[in-house]
């Protein structure tokens, strides 16, 4: 698949090897704004599976699907699932042990 965006890279890319595209966790910001006026993509989360911590914005998001799936950059396991189906936004956080955010 080509997004029609200029790529022009020498050699193959990780995404090609992977056979598909993913987005950054930044792309979750819109749907997550349905839950919180503050931006949740800057929250730090801990992967329930491998213990790696990182901000949600840096996770890998697979969006060519019925919903968005954010995966851990360390171990690839599912951190978060988000669907916007039938007028309802559903957020499943089972892969995260916690989310933490810096207060002002």
């Amino acid at each position: 698949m080509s997004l029609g965006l200029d790529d022009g890279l020498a050699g193959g890319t990780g995404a090609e090897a992977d056979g598909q595209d993913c987005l950054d966790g930044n792309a979750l910001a819109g749907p997550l704004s349905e839950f919180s006026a503050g931006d949740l993509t800057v929250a730090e989360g801990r992967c329930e599976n491998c213990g790696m911590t990182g901000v949600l914005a840096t996770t890998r998001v697979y969006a060519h699907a019925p919903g968005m799936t954010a995966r851990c950059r360390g171990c690839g396991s599912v951190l978060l699932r988000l669907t916007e189906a039938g007028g309802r936004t559903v957020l499943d956080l089972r892969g995260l042990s916690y989310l933490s955010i810096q207060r002002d």
Partner: protein
Amino acid sequence: MGIISSGFRGRRNKDQPGLPPGQYLTESFPVLSAGPTPRIDTAEWEFQLTTEAGQKHSWSWDDFQNLPQEEFTVDIHCVTSWSKFGTRWKGVSMDTFFQDVDTSHPYTMFSSYGGYTTNLPMEDILNGKAWIVHQFDGEDLQPAHGGPARLLVPHLYFWKSAKWVRGLRMMDRNDPGFWETNGYNLHGDPWLEERYW
């Protein structure tokens, strides 16, 4: 509902006979996935069916290839709105896998390499309604499309047709799978537009 963009039609070709409600026809074969594409060596591949008694029935790739093969052509319907007519597949009917299986549970949970799951009632996978397929259009199934083998349940929305399928277990309740826990319908009949909760 929000404001209407009168000129916006989407990519949709909707006035086609044979299309379920709210679907459009596509010639391409979009790749949908909730994660990276796993690379599965057929030498390592195994398909396993686990009954309520804990009994395990397993098939290696060779076992699978030696089962009676069926070739068939069906229409497929994705909940993201595209439908594709006349897709040609080759694989093994779920009836064949269940031949020597002793179970009275009415539901199943399929699982995949990569961790995907989807729930299906027995009545939707038996009697020639579902297959484990390994060829599309006369070619080995591409990893991006679920190869080496995927489940195919063409009469339900395509998220039920789990890619990279590796097994199923019997359930007495209709527990939800990966998308069914998150907003998508437990059943998913495109003709009844069973898309969402």
